[in-house]
């Protein structure tokens, strides 16, 4: 790509690319987001490419195949979308490639069996826009993801990329940019919800030799993949946001911190930065202006604590990721003790859209306190797992039952976990809560970066609390006593409960210890570490008591407190459990009720998983 030396050159290029795009007859988009990749979408992309060549509908005759980032509906993956027409094929296999190319690309027919079957209406949906999962979303930060090739800057420019940058650089003063972001009410989407505009302004005011901007792409929260999807799906929107932010605060050096568990994100962000630099969108005199700024990619070493801003900055400096006390904010004294603006991936990705469409448009979505939208990764025991974006203020019920399609057959909703290890679990009666920063915090959870994990009646809340605590024991940096020693002891107390060794004062001890960990820990990781325990204890106390007093895990998860039995009346004698049992603990003749031999049973729950009639129960 040639170096762009003026905003006009950018617009000229955009027009040129748009013209080329117009000439394309059909495009086959193959989703290569994290979910689809895990289901082998790379092979499908290859197969489709091969078929297009074979059937002579390739680029030379105006057809195009494009691998994209996450389209969102991971549950139905691998996904293939044919444009024009928004034709949406789901659960595609490599062997379907020939048919798709022949009938939908070459011809104009639909492959009926690959279309999405709406479980509500029992109708096949032709276009993805008809699918409730998509129809109920509002995409801002994720708008372009899934519609373009993330490795091609031209794609991004053709889709409007860097227009906001040109607008900011040539029609706005830095202070006007800050003012715009401030008035938009954009809040940091990495979890804290701090007002972005205010943060930028503090950075400008702070004395320093240099200023830095950082993109937090650490996304350590287990159960969250919005940032991964964004970096892998549309790196240029993040880069563009960062350049605008750098211009606003007067920074010339930026870092994107990406966790090493996301190799593709590292690769695409690096590629994006390199391409942007070649095109004159990064580096000296961006777009011919007198503003210079460059970005380096910093790979994390695999530590959850590095999502915490001061630890992240230490990590970028090449140090061990130990947080510092933040009585002096990192926005004033951050990276190498210089004023530093740190925002997460989604926040940066939202900035260009605000610059383009304005404050009023942005504020028309969401709530008064939390305007705009928020991306979530919906996962767990919900039908439609995937990547979604909704206006702030929608209810959890709309997200889980509307977009998410509710739970699986015969399973009932028990809790939804938000905010990762710093968040909490919310029960059924909190489902009508509006999702925004303040509401979730008030309810004892938090927004976090946007992981949303749905749990059904087979999830044990004590086990979930224990899971998160174990995670934090492992991920604590170990610098301060309350977090290092406290979470370890918290885990020991919880393990006592899940192993049936707890006494009645365990809950009081947990609460007392949790209070000190929250009050006295050094950083946000420690201060929020007891949240999973406290929120489950508050909402599901009975379940804790059952473990302690009755020595029974009602959900059948805690092995020492679980004994599975087969209900004679429900069992149809299908024999599935018998086959699934890894230790031959199940006896029974075909079509007659089966039984579990307690002495052999290892409580692995394999039988319960496969039983089609829920005859395997937790003994009382």
């Amino acid at each position, binding site marked *: 790509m040639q170096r762009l030396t003026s905003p006009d050159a950018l617009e000229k290029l955009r027009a040129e690319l748009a013209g080329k795009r117009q000439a394309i007859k059909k495009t086959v988009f193959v989703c290569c987001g994290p979910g689809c990749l895990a289901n082998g979408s790379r092979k499908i992309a290859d197969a489709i490419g091969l078929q297009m060549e074979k059937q002579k509908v390739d680029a030379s005759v105006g057809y195009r195949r494009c691998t994209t980032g996450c389209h969102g509906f991971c549950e139905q993956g691998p996904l293939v979308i044919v444009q024009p027409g928004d034709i949406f094929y789901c659960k595609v296999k490599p062997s379907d490639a020939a048919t798709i190319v022949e009938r939908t690309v070459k011809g104009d027919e639909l492959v009926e069996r690959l279309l999405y079957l709406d479980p509500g209406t029992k109708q096949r949906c032709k276009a993805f826009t008809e699918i409730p999962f998509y129809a109920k979303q509002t995409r801002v930060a994720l708008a372009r993801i899934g519609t373009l090739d993330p490795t091609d800057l031209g794609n991004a420019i053709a889709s409007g990329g860097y227009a906001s940058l040109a607008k900011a650089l040539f029609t706005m003063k830095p202070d006007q940019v800050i003012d715009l972001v401030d008035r938009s009410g954009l809040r940091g989407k990495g979890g804290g919800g701090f007002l972005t505009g205010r943060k930028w302004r503090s950075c400008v005011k702070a004395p320093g030799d240099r200023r830095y901007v950082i993109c937090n792409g650490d996304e350590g929260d287990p159960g969250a993949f919005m940032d991964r999807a964004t970096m892998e799906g549309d790196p240029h929107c993040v880069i563009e946001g960062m350049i605008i932010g750098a211009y606003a605060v007067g920074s010339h050096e930026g870092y994107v911190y990406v966790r090493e568990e996301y190799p593709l994100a590292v690769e695409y962000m690096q590629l994006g930065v390199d391409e942007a630099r070649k095109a004159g969108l990064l580096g000296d005199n961006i777009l011919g202006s007198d503003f210079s700024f460059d970005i380096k990619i910093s790979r994390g070493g695999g*530590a959850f*604590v590095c999502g915490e801003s001061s630890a992240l900055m230490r990590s970028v400096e090449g140090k*061990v990721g130990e947080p*510092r*006390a933040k*009585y*002096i904010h990192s926005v004033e004294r951050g990276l190498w003790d210089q004023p530093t603006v740190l925002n997460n991936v989604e926040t940066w990705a939202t900035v260009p859209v605000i610059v383009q469409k304005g404050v009023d448009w942005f504020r028309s979505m969401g709530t008064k306190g939390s305007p705009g939208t928020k991306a979530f990764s919906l996962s767990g025991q919900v039908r439609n797992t995937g990547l979604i974006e909704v206006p702030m203020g929608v209810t959890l019920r709309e997200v889980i039952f509307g977009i998410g399609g509710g739970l699986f057959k015969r399973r009932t909703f028990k809790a939804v976990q938000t905010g990762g290890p710093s968040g909490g679990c919310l029960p059924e009666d909190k489902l009508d809560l509006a999702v925004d920063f303040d509401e979730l915090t008030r309810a004892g959870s938090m927004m976090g970066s946007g992981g949303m994990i749905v749990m059904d009646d087979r999830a044990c809340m004590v086990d979930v609390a224990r899971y998160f605590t174990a995670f*934090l*024991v*492992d*991920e*604590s*940096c*170990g*610098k*301060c*006593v*309350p977090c*290092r*020693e*406290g*979470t*370890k*002891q918290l885990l*020991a107390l919880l393990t006592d409960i899940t192993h049936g060794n707890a006494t009645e004062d365990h809950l009081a*001890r947990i609460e*007392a*210890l949790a*209070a*000190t960990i929250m*009050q*006295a*820990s*050094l950083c946000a990781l420690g201060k929020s570490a007891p949240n999973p325990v406290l929120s489950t204890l508050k909402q599901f106390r009975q379940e804790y008591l059952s473990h302690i007093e009755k020595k029974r895990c009602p959900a059948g998860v805690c092995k020492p407190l679980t004994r599975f039995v087969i209900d004679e009346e429900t069992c149809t004698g299908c024999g599935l459990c018998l086959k699934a049992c890894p230790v031959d603990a199940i006896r029974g003749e075909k079509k007659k009720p089966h039984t579990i031999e307690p002495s052999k049973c290892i409580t692995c729950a394999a039988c319960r998983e496969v039983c089609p009639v829920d005859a395997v129960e937790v003994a009382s």
Partner: protein
Amino acid sequence: MSTLVKIKIDEKEYEVPRGRYLLAICQENGIPIPTLCHHESVEPWGGCRLCVVEFRKKRWDSWWTELATACLYPAEDGLCVWTRSEKVMKARRTILDLLLARCPGSEVITKIAAEHGVYQTSFAKREGEDNCILCGLCTRVCDRVGARAIATALRGALKEVSTPFGEPPPDCLGCLSCAHVCPTHTIGHTEADGKRTVWGRTFELVRCSGCGAASVTREQVEYAVRTKNLSPEYFVKCDACKRRESAATFAGLLFDERKGGEGPVGPTGSGPSHE
């Protein structure tokens, strides 16, 4: 940083330089604050959390109180601090309870805990022999000294102070600063026959060419000579022998000067002068 601000500690008013850390202010004013990870030779760190105090300040339009470590909290105008509130004491007790579970054998911890009314730990005791509380003083002092021979390894509950690969540290000077700043005296070291052993490495001590006494390691001397550009001559003899030598020199000098009938003559120094 010389602007004075008014703050209140335990309901008493103080005028202190803005930005000065609360721990220093308290120490200067005789207000006891327990701490285990603080040493004046290194930057405040906020690891042990024992120096937590409760503070109240105005943020936007509402008052709020919170715990903060005194070692790292800078004084600002209107700050209100309580050093022994119920919240503070409860946090300190839990922290000491946790430390006691970590190091049940430490006399220092046992004593401080008892002073706070914690006589035995309510938590599961750690198995292990050392009394390391991971205050990080040894590693920070080692960095400050310039040796950078030890550091923390691993993280979270598994974190420990370690030499590279747990082996005798190649960069160690054997200066024992780590052992001296360790609040629980858990860094073992021995000295015998002109040899010193610490961190599994044995160092040869520099023997006085006069009497054979020894106080520092060869590595220390080499490091001082190399990095501080000091004459190696300085390190050849022990303090007692050097004293004798300098006494003899001055006595001689004095004798000579007296003969010459000159006025007061001092040595090279700027302080006391010999007449």
